[in-house]
């Protein structure tokens, strides 16, 4: 089979919809991951030995589940939870079907990031908030999450980049997006132009995410 190389002027037509799909996937996943992973991370930290309400019996299973979610390679996880994915989305291909395993993989990942960011907040900060008469909710929002914000932003950056990578993996089994184009055109048809273009797009995306994440984190950190 001969390689048919897509001419450069036809690349945007092929890649722009794929880019839009990738951004949608990662965007939706990150919204879900942050909104579900944050409370989980807060629970992981605060039921732990140095938390606000240590509960070993809650912490241990929670921690176990978080580890389980992270111990499977993404490709294996994606294949394993196909019945669950079909239950939720009614399909196993396309970007919405990819969003399910990406979210499932992303939540424990982000929960651990939140937990470690909260652990780095000095314990005196929590003491101050408690001694100032804060409720548990107030202590978590005003003291813990607020002080950890720069670390949390760095965590979102890290997680977003990981999700970009996952979206490319999901692409290989028909999820769409840049990864799908890279595999079907670049890899299976030896289309060097598409291959290079997808690599370039992924590199630039990662750089943009990292750069903006660093800028925001630095801005949020006072001194």
């Amino acid at each position: 089979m001969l390689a048919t190389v897509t001419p450069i002027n036809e690349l945007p037509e092929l890649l722009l919809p794929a880019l839009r799909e990738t951004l949608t996937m990662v965007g939706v996943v990150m919204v879900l991951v942050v909104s579900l992973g944050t409370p989980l991370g807060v629970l992981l930290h605060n039921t732990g030995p140095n938390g606000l309400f240590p509960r070993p019996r809650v912490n241990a299973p929670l921690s176990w589940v978080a580890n389980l979610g992270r111990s499977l390679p993404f490709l294996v996880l994606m294949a394993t939870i196909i019945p669950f994915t079909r239950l939720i989305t009614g399909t196993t291909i396309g970007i919405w079907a990819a969003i399910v395993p990406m979210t499932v993989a992303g939540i424990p990942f982000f929960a651990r990031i939140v937990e470690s960011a909260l652990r780095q907040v000095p314990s005196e900060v929590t003491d101050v908030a408690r001694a100032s008469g804060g409720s548990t909710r107030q202590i978590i929002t005003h003291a813990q999450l607020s002080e950890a914000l720069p670390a949390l932003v760095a965590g979102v950056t890290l997680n977003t980049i990981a999700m970009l990578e996952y979206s490319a993996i999901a692409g290989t089994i028909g999820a769409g997006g840049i990864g799908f184009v890279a595999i079907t055109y670049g890899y299976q048809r030896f289309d060097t132009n598409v291959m290079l273009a997808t690599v370039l797009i992924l590199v630039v995306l990662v750089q943009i995410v990292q750069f903006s994440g660093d800028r925001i984190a630095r801005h949020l950190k006072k001194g």
Partner: protein
Amino acid sequence: MISLKELVKTFDRSDSSHRALDGINLEVERGEIAAVVGPSGAGKSTLARCINMLERPTSGRVIVDGTDLTALRERHLRDARRSIGTVFQASSLLSRKTAAQNIALPLDFLEVTKKERDARVAELLERVGLADRGDSYPHELSGGQRQRIGIARALALRPSVLLSDEATSGLDPATTKSVLAMLSELRDDLGLTIILITHEMDVVREVADRAALLEDGRIVEEGLLGDLMRDRNSALGRSLLPHPTAHRAEVGTQVWKVQYVSDHVDPDWISRLSGEIGAPVTLLAAAIETTAGQPVGRATISIPATDADRIDRLLAGYGIYGEIESDSTAALVEPELTGVA
């Protein structure tokens, strides 16, 4: 007014339980500054955390203005904590909030109106002399300024008791002095009762009315500063006023450490003593200062004599307490020991 009654705190470990506080009793009058001192590991920080209810005592009571804080249920504990303002170690401001926002924290938690909050914060900034630094972030403030903000935050809800948990640790001596002066001023102006948890004797000497010595979870000595210093048997009194470093005495003399807390002692007691025993009395070190309103004298003297009882009687007659620090008069009788002063 705050009183601690039979306060016990034990920590369970896997194989044993550790008794960090072992029956603490302490009464502090309204408007009094009480210092709790002790070596590290004595239980000072556990005591501080039990007083402001960050830790629940295992047993015993903490009574502030007639309310037993230990009897309160979890949700009322928030109110309990509000009756005690806590000043923490120097760096405990929220780094991402301005000085004003840090002071506002307890008010925000109480959900007071914005107008009320801003007025109180402005008043507090004024109170601690940092009216122009409200918009500064903690890293833009000096250690002393940060601690003033910490004090302002502790005062935000008008507590009757201020608890200072090693608030001056890590500050330089001049800053420590200014922070202590501020605490003392607040006591005078607001009638605050202040409990200082500290390992620094200088801090106690500077501002405390009352001091308690904590060792192994127990208060081993406690009293008003003046009483402690007058008490010749008080280890706490002695450590409050350490003797100045003395010259080495000549061989063949008795070295005495003497002290007095009174303005009735004849300033010329050394020549009187010298005259009575008919031998020269050498002054090796001396210090006179005023502490807790009391003139306090300390001296190290050497006397070429052996009749210790007589010296003791003479000193007591002048109103001075003395004890032998070292005695090398025996060296004259046993020359082979010369030099082992």
